[in-house]
């Protein structure tokens, strides 16, 4: 369901602004850290300068103030150490805080999206954005600035000093470093072409590994050669993409590194320096400055190069974060304007229309009234819109036309929490949370007494099973509580029972996921039905023959409405569905309720006959 966002092009400018806004809470700290780090970088030049000065004086035969200079060097270095430590602490902590802030914002946003957004499985994507992309981004935002400041300030001072000491030699050194730096900056641009592929490969790998872990039973059963094909493919693509990205700048990077390798720099500067000294141009002691400062110059520029790299990957990460933050949240009513559903708590479907964002219509005007305390069944072929209608009542998405009202108030005017105090649902395969069974049942009513929790579990026919767990109700799902799908379903029913909402939406297929306890669940549901408004998506028509109202949907329209016998008599769509089902399921059509050996024999005979018919049917 509608997961498409606005056009990406118009978002880039907004993105930059957004990022600035995201960064604001830690901006001061980052700026201060950058200043401190720049200062520290400047002070790093001290040992070289002092040593050259000491050398100059000693070579001139003067020992005047040599010790003072030595102490000055040590003092400045210590100051550098303090500055550097403070900057590092400040920016790292700002980093961690920013990541936390972003994660909170993102999860807050997730909580506001319509439930339909979560259909189709987005957990891999969510994990990748909230954890990995934030990690990428916070690093780029918080670290890059301080590192960049140091990378600019440090080399600037070094270059200035070298130029002052001996400008021809300085120019040669700068030329070497500039050559290497320009090669690697160009590479960064080329590498940017690969980041899309890398990001896609990384997302796919995350999704593939999640799928492998979750679908492991299927994989074990079916996978050829003991391989998980999607994982294998995703991993191969991930490595290939990375290798290709790296291969592009393999050789240029080698050249750049070699150009500024210590041996090369030392060789070039001393060879030239010796020549210059020989020509009487330079002072020998000047060479000391170059031997000390020339070698490390290139490495000092690395953060500039990395910053570019980080910015590129951060841009993609930011794009995904902003896209998620920009998903239109479900319209929430302003607290002041929220209305409480009135009494009676009638559910009114008023010309309900729904279409996907691509315009594909699912419901084309359905009107019905669900009176309090009645059972309404939704019937129709797959794709008729049954599930969509039920999900709209549970406000997984909002109607695109018409209205749904609860107690005469439009769902959109009811506060979300208020709505779910009145409407409960068992529509999808239920998910248990990784916490204790007790907490799972009491999810909506954390204050519920143990007796109430146990009573709900008993009513859902799961109490005995829970007590058999290692820690009973305190067993934690996924740790020592491993429940089957049907058992999890019964826990969900217990949860719904305990939540005690007056309106309940139910998918029969979901409710009866565990046939072995079907009778017990039926008793639970019968209890659930007492005094409540039920909307049931029905698959087995005989279970709803006593429903107060049956709504027959076909292609998004309400084609018939009425009670079982009336609809049968009408001989329309419902009657056809009924007839089709009776043919298909002989065991449920037997009208004689008495079970005797003779009846069973007869049933076997009937089934044998049906098997033959089925065989023909299969080859049709």
């Amino acid at each position: 369901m509608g997961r498409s966002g606005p056009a990406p092009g118009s978002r880039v400018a907004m993105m930059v602004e957004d990022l600035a806004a995201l960064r604001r809470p830690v901006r001061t700290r980052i700026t201060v850290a950058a200043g401190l780090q720049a200062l520290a970088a400047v002070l790093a030049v001290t040992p070289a300068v002092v040593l050259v000065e000491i050398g100059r004086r000693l070579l001139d035969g003067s020992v005047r103030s040599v010790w003072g200079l030595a102490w000055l060097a040590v003092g400045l270095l210590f100051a550098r150490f303090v500055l550097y430590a403070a900057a590092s602490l400040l920016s790292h902590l700002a980093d961690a805080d920013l990541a936390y802030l972003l994660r909170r914002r993102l999860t807050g946003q997730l909580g506001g999206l319509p439930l339909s957004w979560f259909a189709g499985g987005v957990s891999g994507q969510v994990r990748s954005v909230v954890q990995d992309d934030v990690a990428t981004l916070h690093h780029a935002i918080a670290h890059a600035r301080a590192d960049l400041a140091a990378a600019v300030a440090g080399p600037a001072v070094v270059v200035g000093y070298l130029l002052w000491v001996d400008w021809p030699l300085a120019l040669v050194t700068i030329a070497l470093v500039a050559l290497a730096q320009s090669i690697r900056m160009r590479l960064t641009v080329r590498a940017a072409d690969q980041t899309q592929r890398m990001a896609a490969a990384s997302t796919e790998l995350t999704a593939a590994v999640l799928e492998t872990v979750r679908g492991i039973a299927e994989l074990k059963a079916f996978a050829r050669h003991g391989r998980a094909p999607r994982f294998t493919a995703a991993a191969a693509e991930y490595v290939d993409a990375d290798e290709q990205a790296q291969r592009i700048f393999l050789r240029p990077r080698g050249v750049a590194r070699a150009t500024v390798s210590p041996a090369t720099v030392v060789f070039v500067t001393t060879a030239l320096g010796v020549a210059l000294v020989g020509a009487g141009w330079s002072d020998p002691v000047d060479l000391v400055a170059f031997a000390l400062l020339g070698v490390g110059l290139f490495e000092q520029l690395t953060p500039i190069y990395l910053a570019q790299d980080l910015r590129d990957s951060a841009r993609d990460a930011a794009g995904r974060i902003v896209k998620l933050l920009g998903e239109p949240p479900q319209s929430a009513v302003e607290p002041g304007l929220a209305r409480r559903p009135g009494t009676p708590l009638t559910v009114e479907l008023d010309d309900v229309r729904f279409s996907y964002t691509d315009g594909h219509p699912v419901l084309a005007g359905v009107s019905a009234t669900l009176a309090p305390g009645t059972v309404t069944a939704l019937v129709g072929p797959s794709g008729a819109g049954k599930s969509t209608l039920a999900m709209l009542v549970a406000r997984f998405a909002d109607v695109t036309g018409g209205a749904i009202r609860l107690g005469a108030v439009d769902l959109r005017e009811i506060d979300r929490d208020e709505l779910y105090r009145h409407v409960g649902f068992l529509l999808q395969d239920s998910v248990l949370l990784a916490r204790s069974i007790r907490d799972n049942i009491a999810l909506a009513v954390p204050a519920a007494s143990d007796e109430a929790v146990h009573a709900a579990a008993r009513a859902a026919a799961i109490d005995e099973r829970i007590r058999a767990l290692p820690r009973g109700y305190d067993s934690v799902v996924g740790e020592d509580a491993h429940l089957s799908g049907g058992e999890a379903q019964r826990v969900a029913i217990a949860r719904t029972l305990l939540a005690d909402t007056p309106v309940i939406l139910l998918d029969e297929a979901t409710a009866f996921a565990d046939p072995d306890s079907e009778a017990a669940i039926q008793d639970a549901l019968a209890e659930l039905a007492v005094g409540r408004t039920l909307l049931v998506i029905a698959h087995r028509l005989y279970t709803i023959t006593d429903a107060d109202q049956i709504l027959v949907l076909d292609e998004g329209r309400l084609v018939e409405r009425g009670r079982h016998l009336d609809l049968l008599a009408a001989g329309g769509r419902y009657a056809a569905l009924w007839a089709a089902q009776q043919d298909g399921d002989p065991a449920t059509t037997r009208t004689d309720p008495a079970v005797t050996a003779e009846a069973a024999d007869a049933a076997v005979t009937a089934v044998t006959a049906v098997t033959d018919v089925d065989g023909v049917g299969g080859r049709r």
Partner: protein
Amino acid sequence: MRGPLHGLVPTTQRAPLVRYLTAISGYAVSEGVAFGVLAPLLTALLRGHTATAARWVIPLAAAAVVGWWAHYYLGSRSLRLSTAWRRDLYTRIGDTLLTLPLGWYDAPGARAVPQLVTADVARVASTVFLAQALLGAILTPATVAVFLFACDWRIGLASLAAIPVVLLALTLGRRLSARAEAAEHAATTEAGARLVEFAGAQPTLRAAGQSAAGRAELDRALATQHRTARRQVIASLPGEYLGELGLQLAFTALLFTGVALATHDQLGPARMIALVVLGISMLRPLDALVGLGAALRGIQSSAARIEGLLTVAPLPEPSPHPGGTGLADGRLAGVGTGLGLGDVGSGLADVGAGLGDVGREAAGIGVELEDVRFAYPDGPEILRGLSLSIPAGRTTALVGASGSGKTTVTRLIARFHDVGAGTVRVGGVDVRDLASGELLRHLAFVFQDVYLFDGTVEDNIRFGNPDATDEQVREAARRARVDAVVARLPDGWASRVGEGGRLLSGGERQRVAIARALCRDAPIVLLDEATASLDPENEAAVHAALAELATARTVLVIAHRLNTVVRADQIAVLADGRVVERGSHAELLARDGHYAAFWRDRDRAAGWRLASAARPDRADRPARAGG
């Protein structure tokens, strides 16, 4: 390169890796030599002996040439090595994931797998690049130190004073940060898992009402992640800063010693300056060592996590046979023929002949469970001496209460787990004597909680048999009535089914699973039947497909639909971890035992109607309820 990291190096890469490391070492030493040569060069120059200085430029040139060669050669070499390493790790992890006992996936360890795959593998493979920096940071200063001592032992000693301080700082840093790092990693993993849950359980959480409370667990995990991240920052600082401080002490010692020696005329100023330059050159790479040490520790813990996964004991495989897959059928057939005599009256009379044919025409591969006992790790014993013969080519229905071990039986046959005691034989061969590929080739599954992969419907069907032709896939789809599902999907056959198949209903997923099994065309079908999840119009059709799946195959069905139970050739009733009744529907009803009670209960359920409470629903049918 010790510990878990060493064990992860792929065997085929060992020799290239050693060559690579040797080359790096050579390069690192050459850089040291370049600095070492600088000392006599500078001394000569400062003393005014320019010609002598010029001669020392020649070895410098040689070192520069070595550097160029090394960067050219090492660049491509290191990429190739790290890529090969990553490929190998992914292959091994991919293989391991499928050999792990299913029970492992229920344990908390499974939660770490995504993190392991996305982050840890790349980290471990980056060791190749790290090694270059690390060896450089060690060998280059070591080489310089040799020169330094050769020139003047006092300056050498003064600069070496730093080493113990740096080492101490490294050790201290390791101790402080290791625990914080582990805590941060655990918190990140936990937060990731909570996020997946938060996104996956949104409807449930919202239905619970208090949206704030629904988020509490996630918020707590995120807060813990934040707290541990901050703590890690602080814990890693002393190590880092002490290292810095150590280096500064070293510089101070070096400078002061030099100045003292020079001012006391123990050392000529030219030589003093040259040696202090050498000393500083030696100390500089040590700075990087501190950071590299932290990186290596990170890699080691990544390696430990991967190693931990790779060394989870898989189910033991029989020693491989040289014949490979071709042997499988012969093996099964051969032993199967012998078995045909041994088994008692379970419809195996025709099996011996059937097994004579090679391949899947061996329509008679039966399954026997003999005195099987089984408990999930840390769980109670679920099967307590279960014996069951599942005759070839027939349908056996398993019936029993929830938790009676029905699903466990199918999982043991497929050898997702090994029995605690007793044996499971397929075609007369103990499943533990079959390679997992051999065994699984003869099995097709239809699980109850079908997990579909996030691909197209067609991909999911073909998953049962990658070699199937398009026609076979379509035919299987048609027979399982998947074509009707496809018809309503927006993109037809190309529609994706979503993570886990969530865009399809439960019934539709089951139909895809049946098509998958049909496509697989294996002689044994393990079927965990779904109920009530098929829409009315297709229910009959799916039954037809299931019936077709059952013809000429050995079927073990965990039966939920009464007509499936009735139709089975043999019904086995499970209770207390044993088969308590076995026979046909009529026989078992006549016995009036467990099965008869089950039947009455289910029959009552089948007649149940949902209605608003006031209607005296059940009271209408006392005969049905009472049996």
